[in-house]
């Protein structure tokens, strides 16, 4: 038994540390298509102190560490590329508190999106957070560490914009508070009016520290919520439609989706939009504003509102939307790969055409999906393919198609979201050299031994 193993057992307890083949197999991969690599140890700590001890041990011994939530980015971000210790954070899932009037929650670093949703529904029915459509197991900390988006992205931006404070274990083991909580008991701001240090951790894919606690902004939850779907067969009109919709400031979330099958969906672009209200009058007023905003398109017969059957509504109103996860089994094979470059909304038509072309070229089932971020400031365009895990040829085709899709997005001004290592390299090749230099300085100063999720955002 190695000294490292013994030390980890002393820190986290025997049942929560493993060097067994089975855990090393499982934690060597995610459900996507990235090459696997085994960790040497897996540990599931329960407290911040335990995380600190693990990091200090790893830093002293120069062992790589990879913090992990649910591992559902599907782009290999939790695969321990250089071995070392995978730290599964999900035992740290306490909801520390909610400040109802200031509308924020403080949660531990392994708290799942689902658990916060349930907690708020039970205890603070007037509050909600921006839940993504990933499975509810995904953790809030990991989601902000990759700049995830959720149901409130159209109104308030990336989920990382909604962070209101961080507690981070630095790669050298010190515990550091970021934002108002660094000098106050209250977690209402991640930066302003202090120097905003949250940028040292958000978007860094776990390469600069481990988030052990975070404050998250909450938002009013209206009593009623409904869905409308505007359908057009002209992808070139989608940017204008979105511009009009976002102008109303009446819409909660806007998603656009298109797919080849079933046949009734072929060739159409479905703009799913959600409206909310505390009373019927509010809901109907918003519905009217939304309908009016698209009058010109309706008048020209360029599109129209689809009748959403009552039986279909629960599927769309579900949060998270389970049907997105079930896409993984369309090919009866449990596989689903997607990249989600962030692009300008005006790029939607060409990205949609490209996705269809690439899917046809590689004979793949695809799901085109996009989510508006901010008032049309950008959008996440998902390049998603389902595959059969028992079909190696299909898996290869998905890899190639994904690569072509992301390259096309970069060529048209996009930036990566939750990028694979390969996509990170592609991004860094395109980055301003001084930006890269700054990234390198930040990384080397924070993580002098290069132990944090090495292989990711690695500037050479």
């Amino acid at each position: 038994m190695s000294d490292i193993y013994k030390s980890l057992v002393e820190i986290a307890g025997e049942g929560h540390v493993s060097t067994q083949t089975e855990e090393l197999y499982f934690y060597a991969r995610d459900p996507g298509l990235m090459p696997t690599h085994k960790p040497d140890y897996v540990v599931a700590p329960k407290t911040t102190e335990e995380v600190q001890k693990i990091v200090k041990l790893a830093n002293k011994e120069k062992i790589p560490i990879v913090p992990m939530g649910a591992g559902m980015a599907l782009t290999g971000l939790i695969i321990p590329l250089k071995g070392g210790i995978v730290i599964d954070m999900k035992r740290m899932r306490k909801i520390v508190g909610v400040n109802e009037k200031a509308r924020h929650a403080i949660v531990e670093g392994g708290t799942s999106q689902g658990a916060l949703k349930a907690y708020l529904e039970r205890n603070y029915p007037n509050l909600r957070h921006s839940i993504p459509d990933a499975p509810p197991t995904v953790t809030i900390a990991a989601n902000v560490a990759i700049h995830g988006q959720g149901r409130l992205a159209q109104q308030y931006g990336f989920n990382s914009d909604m962070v209101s404070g961080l507690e981070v274990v630095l790669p050298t083991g010190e515990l550091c508070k970021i934002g108002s909580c660094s000098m106050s008991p209250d977690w209402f701001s991640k930066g302003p009016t202090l120097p905003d240090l949250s940028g040292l951790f958000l978007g860094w894919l776990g390469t600069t520290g481990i988030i052990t606690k975070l404050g998250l902004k909450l938002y009013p939850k209206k009593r009623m919520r409904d869905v409308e779907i505007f359908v057009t067969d002209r992808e070139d009109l989608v940017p204008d439609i979105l511009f009009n919709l976002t102008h109303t400031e009446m819409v909660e979330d806007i998603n656009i989706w298109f797919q080849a099958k079933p046949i009734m969906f072929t060739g159409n672009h479905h703009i799913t939009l959600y409206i909310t209200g505390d009373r019927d009058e509010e809901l109907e007023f918003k519905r009217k504003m939304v309908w009016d905003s698209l009058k010109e398109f309706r008048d020209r017969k360029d599109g129209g509102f689809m009748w959403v059957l009552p039986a279909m509504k629960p599927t769309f109103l579900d949060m998270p939307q389970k049907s997105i996860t079930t896409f993984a089994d369309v090919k009866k094979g449990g596989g689903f790969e997607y990249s989600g470059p962030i692009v300008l909304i005006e790029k939607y038509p060409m990205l949609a055409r490209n996705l269809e072309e690439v899917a046809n070229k590689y004979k793949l089932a695809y799901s085109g999906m996009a989510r508006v971020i901010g008032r049309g400031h950008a959008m996440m365009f998902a390049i998603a393919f389902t595959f059969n895990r028992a079909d190696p040829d299909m898996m290869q085709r998905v890899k190639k198609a994904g690569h072509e899709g992301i390259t096309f997005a970069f060529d048209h001004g996009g930036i990566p979201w939750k990028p694979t290592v390969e996509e990170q390299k592609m991004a860094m090749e395109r980055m301003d050299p001084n930006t890269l230099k700054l990234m390198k300085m930040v990384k080397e100063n924070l993580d002098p031994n290069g132990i944090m999720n090495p292989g990711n955002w690695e500037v050479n």
Partner: protein
Amino acid sequence: MEFEAIVHRCFRCGYCKFTEDYQDFNCPSYAKFGLDTYAAGGRMWLINAWLNNEIKTSEHYAEILYSCVTCGNCEKHCVFTFRDDLLNIFEAAKAELVSEGLIPPPVRDYFKAIKVNGNPYKEPQDERGKWAEGTDIQLYSDQEYLFYVGDVGSYDERGKKMAKSVGRLLTEAGLSIGILGNEEKSDGNDVKALGEKWLFEQLAKDNIDIFKKKGVKKIITLDPHAFNAFAQEYPKLGGNFEVWHYTQILSMLIREKKIPPLSAYKVKVTYHDPCYLGRHNGVYSAPRGVLKGIPGIEVIEMNRNRENAFCCGGGGGNFFTDILGVGEESPSRIRVREALDTGAEVLAVACPLCAKMLDDAVKAEGVEERITVRDVADIIITAM
């Protein structure tokens, strides 16, 4: 392996770990260890790896498979179309270990005890019916119902007490019941869950033969595990009986006023759903109906209840094999803390295995002064 064509379809998304509303992880072995390998998705990926020769069978692989308590939460909450086969897949994977002889020693000992002694306690068969001595319960001849108490009701002190309480209530209500006494055999439910299909079929066939020979048409079970075996599995082997759990019968007897009027019993009670009664067979209302029928009782639900109930950790043979082990994060202790959160003074149970598991957990938590584990029948007797 049976079902191997669908094992690779798991996306390991984790919906299966949760309750319906996502309030917390609801997979007992995952709650205990906190490593993804101990949840349904982990098992699926490991079984797939084993099928693909990426990993070999090992003690640890067996421990992971046998730490599943077959509570059925994963089947209820998985979002994929193959969800109904999750437990079948785990059972099939365990059956492979059984055929390879690579099962954990406590599982092996459990099978041996059942095969040699007819019960997991290694007690003599001729003492099986001893629990009924001193009661008015008769041996089965041609009564309307067979009262089947099972291994725990026959040999475990807590189980025997429960069997007596239920037997007393049924008899006093004038119900025509009889027991098999020393002729009773294991129902085999947990033998099957542990992957010993052959032994299960032997037990089931023997039981079916005895039931048929004696002319049994209707069965009341003490134990939800037996209820599940008789209701779900025996029909596949030709054993078709009308099967009731005792709480369903008590509910009927109260409704028909065959149990004398109950006096007020002012106590706050929370009810723990046994997995093999609830999730596996959909019986949720009967035990609650019984409790609510007792004047003075305030029934408070735990956050996780009905099809979202958290298992005590005793299912799938773990009651006997104890693969999950003890400790603060053992499912039974988590469940007791959840019961305490309701403010209840009584944790009501309807399964002898749950009774024992939770009783021990109350002691381990050191909260005997705050909460007592009592079975539904025993609570009625207090109010008589």
